[in-house]
């Protein structure tokens, strides 16, 4: 891939365009969108609410960061060009700077107008965040003039910087990017790092980076500088080392596949076994939530990512798992209460999941893909409403739910205490490992290929001898089983189940995890679960950025749209990135030319003359 990058960048650049040769309409459009974005973000109250979480202690809070990225990004994007084959790329210059600065200026006008209106009008009637707090945050309590001046200056500066990014050589841009990723990453992971440092007795290291004693968190200035330096070092020194390490690993893998695989899985298992002991309660709990959603997402990934069935009622299987485990294990489940041990119950859970998968799957399996989505959503609601109703409350507890679910006991050997995140993490990790193994093995098998064929083109798959109904039902059932595992663990963890834990919202969040992670890719789904659920949090579970809890669903919605617009092919896995596509075409052209030459040289005899 790198070689192609070079290919695309080496062609001669045309001289920079004149400064005033601007696409004014584009600038106006980006400026207007920037201004609207700034007003929107301000009115969501992010600047105020997130001001309580610092990035660098006295300098920058997440609240202000939520505004600052806008002029920078739009200032950068306004002059971004996609250079296709046969187009001339211009050298970047002052023109880009000017455009960036103008976009910054236009965006800042949004805040200027907002500050003025906040001061003079009272729109708090519909807009709940329209209050003096917001005004204070935007003007730093220093009056309108100061605030407006500040934002104009800062936005113009950031827009300029965005334009400047086009001019900087790769050698500078990459370390800058790495440094900001490291700094932001450290800030996001602050509480987890805190936990870790306590576990490993490295508190002094943590304290040297983060501002101690600040209730708003955040790095100290020196800490930020140290981390930024680390980011720089990463690009210049460590990157090469890592690449070398990867290469060594690859070679080892080629030489002795099974041994390398064994070693790496042993290392992985050891890590999973040891790490929870050193992580604090909070991080462990967070990881349990991540694991529960990962389990769900891996299941949905089989259904949506591999077989291409958009199941919006996927939460139904989570509910089936949770309620089956609860009814069978809890001593206080109404009606039917066998008080089985969790490990026995899990067998029944699998059975129920299969039944539910077939029952919901069979009626919908022949429907058009989009109808199927709505009907499965309907099924999800039907199941939830039925569980809640007085009619079923004899078994499910109705709105009162089922309480007193005992610990997850596994054949009397282990007992995983629901209230101890460390123990739960072991349990969840074991099931996630199982789910990953199942996904990986199935993907590369006869049935996995059949799923993919169905996803690609159902009627052709049928014509190629695949019984699409059976294939899709199998995907439904496998997905249902994985989700029901998650439900059973969830029940044991929380100790109770209520119908409200199984709203459609969960289906949508799982879908976002799968899509943002990259449909059909196991590694992508894992990354998606870690990043989204770990950092932003699940529907009812806080993540690392607990301050975001009010905004996370908004962000999920925006992310889903953004992913689909930027990478609509994200739906389809294993798609080579466009660059690689280009590479393939290059290779193909070269090969075709060669082939034609060869044919001309001696291939004539092969074909019977007409």
């Amino acid at each position, binding site marked *: 891939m790198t070689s192609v990058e070079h290919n695309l960048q080496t062609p001669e650049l045309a001289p920079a365009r004149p400064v005033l040769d601007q696409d004014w309409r584009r600038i106006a459009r980006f400026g207007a969108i920037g201004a609207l974005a700034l007003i929107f973000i301000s009115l969501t109250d992010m600047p105020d609410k997130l001001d309580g979480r610092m990035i660098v202690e006295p300098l920058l809070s997440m609240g202000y960061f939520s505004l600052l990225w806008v002029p920078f990004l739009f200032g950068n994007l306004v002059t971004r060009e996609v250079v296709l084959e046969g187009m001339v790329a211009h050298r970047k210059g002052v023109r880009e700077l000017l455009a960036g600065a103008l976009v910054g200026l236009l965006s800042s006008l949004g805040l200027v107008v907002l500050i003025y209106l906040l001061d003079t009008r009272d729109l708090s009637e519909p807009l709940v965040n329209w209050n003096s707090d917001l005004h204070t945050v935007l003007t730093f309590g220093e009056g309108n003039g100061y605030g407006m001046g500040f934002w104009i200056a800062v936005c113009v500066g950031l827009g300029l910087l965005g334009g400047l990014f086009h001019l900087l050589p790769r050698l500078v841009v990459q370390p800058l990017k790495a440094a900001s990723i490291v700094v932001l990453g450290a800030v996001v992971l602050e509480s987890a790092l805190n936990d870790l440092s306590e576990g490993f007795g490295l508190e002094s290291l943590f304290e040297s980076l983060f501002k101690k004693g600040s209730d708003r968190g955040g790095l100290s200035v020196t800490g930020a500088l140290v981390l930024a330096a680390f980011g720089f070092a990463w690009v210049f020194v460590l990157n090469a080392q890592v690449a070398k390490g990867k290469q060594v690993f690859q070679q080892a893998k080629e030489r002795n596949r099974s041994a390398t695989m064994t070693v790496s899985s042993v290392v992985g298992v050891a890590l999973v076994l040891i790490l929870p002991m050193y992580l604090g309660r909070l991080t462990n709990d967070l990881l349990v939530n991540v694991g529960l959603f990962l389990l769900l997402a891996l299941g949905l990934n089989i259904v949506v990512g591999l077989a291409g069935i958009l199941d919006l009622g996927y939460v139904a299987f989570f509910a089936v798992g949770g309620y089956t485990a609860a009814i069978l294990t809890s001593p206080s489940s109404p009606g039917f209460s066998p008080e089985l041990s969790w490990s026995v119950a899990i067998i029944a859970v699998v059975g129920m999941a299969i039944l539910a998968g077939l029952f919901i799957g069979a009626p919908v399996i022949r429907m058009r893909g989009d109808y199927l989505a709505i009907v499965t959503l309907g099924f999800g609601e039907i199941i939830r409403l039925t569980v809640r109703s007085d009619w079923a409350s004899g078994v499910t507890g109705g709105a009162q739910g089922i309480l007193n679910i005992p610990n997850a006991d596994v054949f009397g050997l282990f007992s995983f205490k629901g209230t101890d995140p460390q123990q739960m993490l072991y349990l969840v990790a074991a099931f996630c490992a199982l789910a990953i*193994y*199942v996904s990986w*093995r*199935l993907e*590369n*098998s*006869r*049935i*996995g*290929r*059949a799923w*993919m*064929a169905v996803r*690609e*083109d159902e*009627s*052709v*798959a*049928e*014509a*190629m*001898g*695949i*019984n*699409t109904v059976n294939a899709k039902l*199998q995907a439904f059932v*496998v997905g249902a089983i994985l989700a029901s595992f998650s439900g059973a663990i969830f029940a044991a963890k929380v100790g109770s189940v209520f119908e409200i834990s199984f709203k459609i919202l969960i289906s949508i969040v799982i879908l976002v995890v799968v899509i943002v992670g990259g449909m059909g890719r196991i590694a992508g789904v894992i990354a998606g679960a870690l990043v989204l659920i770990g950092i932003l949090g699940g529907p009812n579970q806080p993540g690392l950025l607990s301050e975001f809890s009010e905004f996370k669903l908004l962000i999920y919605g925006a992310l889903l749209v953004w992913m689909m617009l930027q990478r609509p092919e994200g739906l*389809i*896995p*294993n*798609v*080579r990135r466009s660059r690689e*596509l280009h590479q*393939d*075409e290059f290779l*193909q052209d070269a090969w*075709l030319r060669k*082939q034609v030459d060869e*044919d001309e040289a001696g291939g004539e005899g*092969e*074909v*019977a003359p*007409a």
Partner: protein
Amino acid sequence: MSERLLTIDNLSVTFGGLHALRNLNFHVDRGEIVSVIGPNGAGKTTFFNMISGMVTPTEGDIRFKDQSLIGLDPNQVTARGIARTFQNVRLFANMTILENVMVSQHCRTRQGIFGALFHTRSFKREEEEIRAYGEEVLSFFGSRLVGYRLHQPASVLSYANRRRLEIARAMATRPEVILLDEPVAGMNPKESEELTGLIGKLRDDWGFTIVMIEHDMGVVRDVSDRVVVLDHGETIAQGSYDEVSTNPDVIEAYLGRPAEEAS
């Protein structure tokens, strides 16, 4: 006298009043190459759709080795031994080339979820077999679809190669009869000439029986044992290429009124 494979008996289909095909009668013997020709919209593709179970005829019967195919699902028809290609190339674009030919052996294989999870010996053997057979059918087209290509998504292929892969995919279902829908459409003369030779080989070396829809008369003349001509859903002629090509009805169907034919 060779075995009768396909018998088309009085086949008709209507789409809401439009007679796409009317009273079609003919048969295909083992080892034949039969071409179906006719102007656009004559009902040729519809005919293939009916054989492969994608469209149910309103009347008539299709028998394959003396068993009726009517009412079977497309996958069952394929399992019986009839494979097809599509006029508007429909590959599994995001699957690799090898996966394309492996997945189409689905109905010839048995391994289920259990085998895949535990990598049983029979699972491994079957994977190995279908991979080997997949590569074998791919190498029928020379070096174009094998080598580094095996693991590339089908979407990167050139147009002609996509057509070739479609044929390979049909071959991989291990059929007795292959239905080719305009196999050389969009190919340059050189490529279509080569493919014409390969179609002959499909029969001679691989033992497939072939029914082919084709507009390119050169190709039809070179490979067909028999030709069926359709127009507006009606059979207007059947016979050898020479018989058919001199039939005045056929000439009229293709060229319009005889007056224009003179020009």
